[in-house]
C-alpha cells in the first residue's frame, strides 16, 4: 500500500510550490528531491553539522530537523535564493569568494544562509561575534579562519552596498525580507 501523502505549499525563494509529501519527509529532502533544489546540502542528517541550514520565515533552521509538513505555508530561503536573479553573487557569497571561505564547498550553503541571517541581526560583528555566528556550522576542509574573515568581509560589502543604494535613491522603502534587501542593495552597488 502506498504511503499516504499530505498536500502542502512551500514558498521557496519567493516561488510557491504545491507538493504532496509523506509526513516523514524532511524539509531538506523535500527541497532536494521534490523541488530539485540541490543547493541545500545534507551532511550529518541529525542536526550537528549545519550544512542543511535554510532560512524559515527569515530565521535559520536545520532543514534536516524539520518535517516539510510542519512548515506548510511558510517561507523558505535556500542558498539558491541568495544570489540576484541575474546570477550576481549576494554579499555573503561574494565575501566567501574574495576570502577563500570555501574549499570543497560542501558545508558552504549552510554557512551562507546562517551568516545572511546573522548579519541582518548584527550588521557589524566583531571577530568574536563572527565566530559565535558560525559556531553551529562545521567545516572539515577550509578551516574557520577564512570563514571568519568572510563574515567580516560580507559585513563590509553589505554596508557599502547599503550606503551606495542610499546615495543612489532617496526615499526608497527598505525591503523587509533580508534576501530581497541584499539583492536590492547589491544591484544598487554593483551595477553602474
Amino acid at each position, binding site marked *: 500500500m502506498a*504511503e*499516504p501523502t*499530505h498536500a502542502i505549499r512551500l514558498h521557496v525563494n519567493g516561488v510557491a510550490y504545491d507538493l504532496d509529501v*509523506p*509526513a*516523514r519527509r*524532511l524539509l531538506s*529532502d523535500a527541497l532536494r528531491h521534490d523541488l530539485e533544489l540541490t543547493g541545500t546540502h545534507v551532511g550529518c*542528517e*541529525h*542536526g550537528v553539522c*549545519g550544512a542543511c*541550514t535554510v532560512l*524559515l520565515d527569515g*530565521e*535559520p*533552521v*536545520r532543514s*534536516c*530537523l*524539520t*518535517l516539510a*509538513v*510542519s*512548515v506548510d505555508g511558510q517561507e523558505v530561503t535556500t542558498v539558491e535564493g541568495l544570489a540576484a536573479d541575474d546570477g550576481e553573487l549576494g554579499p555573503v557569497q561574494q565575501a566567501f569568494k574574495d576570502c577563500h571561505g570555501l574549499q570543497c564547498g560542501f558545508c558552504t550553503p549552510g554557512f551562507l544562509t*546562517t551568516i545572511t541571517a546573522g548579519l541582518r541581526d548584527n550588521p557589524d560583528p566583531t571577530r568574536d561575534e563572527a565566530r559565535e555566528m558560525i*559556531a*553551529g556550522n562545521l567545516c572539515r576542509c577550509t578551516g574557520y579562519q577564512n570563514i571568519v574573515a568572510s563574515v567580516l568581509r560580507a559585513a563590509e560589502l553589505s554596508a557599502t552596498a547599503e550606503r551606495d543604494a542610499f546615495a543612489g535613491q532617496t526615499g526608497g522603502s527598505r525591503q523587509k525580507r533580508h534576501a530581497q534587501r541584499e539583492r536590492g542593495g547589491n544591484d544598487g552597488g554593483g551595477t553602474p
Partner: protein
Amino acid sequence: MKPAPFEYVRPRTADEAVAALSEAADAKVLAGGQSLIPLLSMRLAAPATLVDLNGVEELAYVRTDDDGVRIGAMARHADVERDAAVAARQPLLRQALTLVAHPTIRNRGTAVGSIAHADPAAELPAVLAVLGGTLTCRSASGTRDITASECFVGPLESALRPDELATEIRLPALGPTSGTAIREAARRHGDYALVGVAAVVDVDGDDGAVRSARAGYFSVADTPVVLDLTDTVDEGPSWDRAAEHAMAALDPLGDIHASADYRRHLIGVLTRQALAAAHAEGRGSDG
C-alpha cells in the same frame, strides 16, 4: 537516515491535540523537533502517530507577571531568550538558554519540549529543578501540575503519561535579594555539557551574607539533581565546603566524553564558580 512512516495529526488547538493523544495508541508529540527528529531519523523512536503542535498557536506564548514566567509548549527557545520581561523576572532562563546548542537550534527548539524530553545533560530540566518550577499537562481526564521534584524519572523519561500533553512550564520570579548563575564545561561550545551547575543564591542585603544557596546539576546523574548547599557556605563567603559537599554528594558516571573522576573534579570547580557568580548577581541586584 529517514524516519519510519507514521500517521500524522496536525491539531489546531490544545483540545484537539489532547483528543488526538487520547485516541492514538503509540503517539509522540512533535514541538520543535530538535531532539525528536534525530531520534526518528536514526529510528531510535518509531511512533505509530505523530501529533504535530506546530499549528497550535494558542500554545505559542511567553507570559510574565509578579509570580514569574509561564512558557507555553510552542514557545521557541529564541522567543524566551529574547524576551526582556523574562530576563528581568527570572534571569536564569536567558543565562541557561545561551548555553543550549546554537542559535539555529534555538530558533526551532522549545523550552517545554526540553522539559518533556528530560535529557539529564540538558540545561533546562536543571533550571526547572533548581527553581522549583512546575510542568502543567493535560489529558482527556483533566489537567495536572507536576512539580519539578517529581518531573524527572530517569534518563529521557519524564513523569508525563503517554496520553498527556505538556502544555506549560511555570518558573517562579527571582526574589529581590537573590542572584542566579549557570556554569558548564563542554568539549565544544554548544555541545551538551560534561557537567553543568545552575545556582540560586539569596543574599542578605546588609552584609552580603548568604541566606540560602541551591544548585541544580545536569549531566551528573540520570536526572537533574538539586542540592541545598546553604549550610555548607562559610563566612566570607567561602564556597570551599559547598564544593566539597557537592563532590561527595554526587556520584557521576564516566563515559567516552569524560571519566567519573574528571566529572567529580568539574562538579567542585563549577559549583564554586556558579555560587560565586550567583552571589555577585544577588548583591548587585540589591543595590
